[in-house]
């Protein structure tokens, strides 16, 4: 009688442990999808702001053609990219191109003072922050997911839950890696 009770208790505990580990993996996998969707939402917001920004800058600095074209090409690439690696690469290019455009804007006082540019600037900086935080949140989620998949014992259930380790969202961004160039 007593031993059957112990066996039942052990089986129940094992079942609870199994369900908890399985659910944890599935939950992490879903939140990885959700946080990637959040990156895409923010990238789209940024892409939507760019035509307006380009028009505004053109009005004051139409001869900065190379910088403007770089932004336009990068935006076109970013809006057509699919898959994490491509989206991340296009995102990195657009981030660099936008920084270039804002640096150019620095030398046009009329542009900087225009009401249109000022309101765009707040929108752009908040969107840049949101993109950055969305990337960070995604990568944190991926870190927990990969940890759960690759470590024992939670990793035992990865196959059953059909969850596998995923790639981090890494942007190619020269500006983040190199020390800024000093020009004399």
């Amino acid at each position: 009688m007593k031993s059957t009770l112990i066996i039942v208790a052990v089986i129940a505990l094992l079942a609870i442990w199994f369900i908890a580990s399985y659910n944890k993996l599935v939950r992490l996998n879903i939140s990885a999808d959700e946080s990637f969707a959040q990156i895409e939402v923010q990238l789209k917001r940024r892409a939507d702001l760019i035509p307006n920004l380009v028009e505004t800058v053109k009005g004051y600095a139409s001869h900065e053609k190379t910088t403007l074209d770089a932004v336009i090409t990068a935006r076109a690439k970013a809006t057509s990219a699919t898959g994490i690696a491509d989206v991340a690469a296009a995102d990195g290019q657009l981030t660099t191109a936008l920084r270039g455009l804002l640096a150019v804007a620095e030398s046009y006082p009329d542009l900087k003072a225009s009401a249109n540019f000022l309101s765009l600037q707040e929108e752009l900086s908040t969107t840049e922050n949101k993109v950055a935080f969305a990337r960070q949140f995604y990568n944190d989620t991926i870190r927990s997911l990969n940890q759960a998949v690759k470590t024992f014992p939670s990793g035992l259930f990865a196959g059953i839950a059909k969850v596998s380790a995923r790639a981090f969202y890494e942007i190619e961004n020269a500006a983040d890696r190199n020390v800024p160039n000093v020009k004399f």
Partner: protein
Amino acid sequence: MTQSSLDFRGLQSSNRLKTFGLLAGMGALVWLVVFAAMTYMGKSSAMIVPVAVGFALISVWGSYYFSDSLVITMTGAKIIEREDNPELFNLVEEVCIASGLKLPKVAIVQDNAPNAFATGRNPDHALIAFTTRILEVMDRDELQGVIAHEMSHVANRDTLVSAVAATTAGAIAILSDMLTRMMFFGGMGDRDNRENNQNPIAIVVSLVVLILAPIAALLLKSAISRKRESLADATAVAFTRNPAGLRKALEVLQADSTVVRQKSNAVAHIWIESPLDGKAVSKLFSTHPPLEERIAILRNMESNPLN
């Protein structure tokens, strides 16, 4: 200092552990009071424990459940919409994306002191409020740090933790109060029993316990609140990865000596900077760690970017 105490993940888990320890201390204190009461007055006095706990539960948990609307009334906060202050909403949205939390209600308190607070019984009913002054004196990065600190309170469910702490502290206060009254008015039935076989030292010790317990409970409650503030600072850095923003914000608060007008003790713990005058309240009873200490910890994180 060891490495683990410098990064925000280590700080988060050590602060959580300390809160747990302090709450366990509260539990032990309740047990001690009950034990002292039984020693002093006999077994039948144990029946007032559920009465005291019941009183504390009703008074504290009502305020916990209605925390958002109650705090709005007590502080005079006005809920605002996106179009009232789009820049503030942009910042709040940024922190929500960084933390994965839902967008809270945002409110403004008309006040000349720079301060902010968060409340709400769970992340779905969260509310964060800012004084008009804090929005004037802080730049984008600093405000982002403040918002991250407040959203950390939401994420760490600090309204719940402080409600648990307040309930236990309240129960202990009611319990000790009832028991001391009973001592003066003759006590309950087990009197003969007690006079026959009780050790006089045990009786004196239990009397001292009953008198000191409410003070000890208050100290524990303040210590829990301080740990939650440190935890919120560490969590805020986990959200923004920018300790400098929050550090600069705390320096702005430090430089400003104005204090929130409404000085009610009851809601002191919810603000980012303690609204009570630092000199009037001793360190042991204060709800917040000293600003210098919080700034020093954030500076340490800045110079040791481990993550």
